[in-house]
């Protein structure tokens, strides 16, 4: 080894030990930070990221809870695409539910928010009352109540009977069951409503005053000022509510008694996934279903973000 090579090696050694020292120093300095971060970090790794990665692996296996998983390659995904009519049915129901419930819920939430934004006295009370369904909405108790209300001999039909209308069984008739769940979802408009209300309050009143001096009618003000200025909030609510709708489970599970019936009319995607996993113990297949849903939601979200440049107006 020449002198220069020897000195270079010594320098390299010195450098690496200096690096190790500075790393050790950094760890020691930041130890309290990591310590405080630990509960979340451990939770995230063990309860979110870990299971997610395991399920990704399981989606390529035939795992059935009892025997060790066998790697089956893309078989689960191929089956889904080619030989599972129930998967297609669940997709159809879920997409229909998303397409109907999200716009209806957002429109209803915006309408209520605009009503509440008119400077009502006792606004906080109304706000709390209108928000209440959202707090209760996803709970089992409300879904049970909903089942009672919309049953063939439920309260809705009793009220209709007063007017001489003989209502169908809203829940056990496949023509109406999904729409009943859509109504249940729209009823839980509280959380987007609160966000809309906050958004509406951000729009300066002098914009409306300027518009009214220009002779703009209320509807022109709504279309030309309120909606564009609210578009970031609409976008946020749209994405969140759509993801929620794709993931909807409890109402269909309770109302249909876990079957997704009648005739698969309320077979939400997550309900089908649940049946496959915990009814038929096809964990591998259920994992594949879960990952397909993740991909669908990711694609939807990506397209939503791409669309923002055409309709979402960010100020400043």
């Amino acid at each position, binding site marked *: 080894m020449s002198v220069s090579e020897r000195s270079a090696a010594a320098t390299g050694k010195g450098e690496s030990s200096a690096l190790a020292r500075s790393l050790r120093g950094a760890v020691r300095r930041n130890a309290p930070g990591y310590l405080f971060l630990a509960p979340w970090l451990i939770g995230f790794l063990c309860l979110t990221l870990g299971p997610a990665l395991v399920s990704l692996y399981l989606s390529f296996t035939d795992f059935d809870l009892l025997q060790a998983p066998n790697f089956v390659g893309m078989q689960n995904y191929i089956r889904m695409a080619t030989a599972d009519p129930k998967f297609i049915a669940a997709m159809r129901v879920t997409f229909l539910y998303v397409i109907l419930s999200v716009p209806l819920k957002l429109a209803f939430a915006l309408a209520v928010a605009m009503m509440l934004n008119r400077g009502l006295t006792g606004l906080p009370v109304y706000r709390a009352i209108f928000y209440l369904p959202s707090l209760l909405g996803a709970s089992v108790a409300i879904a049970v109540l909903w089942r009672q209300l919309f049953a063939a001999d439920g309260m809705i039909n009793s009220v209709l009977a007063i007017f001489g209308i003989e209502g169908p069984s809203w829940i056990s008739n496949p023509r109406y069951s999904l729409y009943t769940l859509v109504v249940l979802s729209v009823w839980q408009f509280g959380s987007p409503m609160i966000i809309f209300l906050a958004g509406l309050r951000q729009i300066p009143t*002098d914009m409306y005053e300027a*518009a*009214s*001096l220009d*002779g703009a009618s209320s509807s*022109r003000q709504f279309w030309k000022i309120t909606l564009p200025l609210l578009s970031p909030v609409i976008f946020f609510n749209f994405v969140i509510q759509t993801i929620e709708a794709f993931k909807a489970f409890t109402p269909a599970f309770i109302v249909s008694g876990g079957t997704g019936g009648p005739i698969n009319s309320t077979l939400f995607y997550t309900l089908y996934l649940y049946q496959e996993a915990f009814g038929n113990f096809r964990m591998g297949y259920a994992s594949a279903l879960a990952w397909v849903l993740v991909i669908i939601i990711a694609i939807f979200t990506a397209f939503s973000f791409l669309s923002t440049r055409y309709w979402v107006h960010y100020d400043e």
Partner: protein
Amino acid sequence: MSTSIQLKKVVKRFGAIDVIKGIDLDIEPGQFTVFVGPSGCGKSTLLRMIAGLETISGGDLLIGGERMNDTAAAKRGIAMVFQSYALYPHMTVYKNLAFGLETAGLKRDEIDRRVKEAAATLRITEYLQRRPKALSGGQRQRVAIGRSIVRDPNIFLFDEPLSNLDAELRVQMRVEISKLHERLGNTMIYVTHDQVEAMTMADKIVVLKAGEVMQTGSPLELYNRPANRFVAGFIGSPKMNFLEAKRTAADTIEVAGQSLRLSSDQLGQAMTSVPITFGIRPEHIVLGGEAGQSLGEAKVDLVEHLGGSTSVYATMTSGASLTILAPGQLAIQHGETVPLRIDAANCHAFGPDDQTLRR
């Protein structure tokens, strides 16, 4: 076209509180009127009542001789420039200017012609395709004014339009708005709390305090013959000096131990020995010389050299504080005692009710 505005006993009530307390006012066609007063005096509320953005609780508002109390804002032939500019952030400058014209259902060619004309007038043509966020404060202000111009209104209302701009730009925009008024000749009402803006722009100033008109008149009328102590203190910068005084004879008062002779016109009917307030503007006090009458002496506390003038803050022998504004550059030192001279013609006297004693 310009239009007259008349207010007859106009009142604005919020609950049990009268914020505008029965104002009478005549604004001639083509006049540039400035509402000026401290915060909370009701000047913006009054403007908004004229615009139709606030309801009128009592009295009559006449625009062009027609009662307009219940007429919708859009039908009053008014355009308004807001303090915040109120530009639509999601529209280009062009769209902002065109909004009112589109609402009115004008043809596209006509809208285009008017927008381009207004843009040329305000030198914003090159920004027409930009959004407001890409403009500076001054450019935004121009767009806001442009939005008013395109509609070709009879009356322009400005609600503190320059208060968001820096000092230099404010002066520049002030001149531009005055020029605009000269060119268009429309009736304009301008609200500000800045008395310099009021003095420099107005044909007529309306000084407001707590919902009441304190005085109406041309800038120089208000400066030379303030109706009360409030107007005397509000108009003019630096502020008028006020000293306690006493009338000792028909044409004599005693101020800070000095006997001053004023005209009996200036002192009106005030009783002798009743405490009155003597007012003298900082620029009307002369340091030394022989002209006029003596106001005694004062000890210099602080000197501000402004180049073109010198501000002197001093304490009189009686203990009263005094501000003096002398032209040019004075070689005065802190702690020096200076003789004060005044011309009786520049003096003001106010009674115990703060109203001027002048006949």
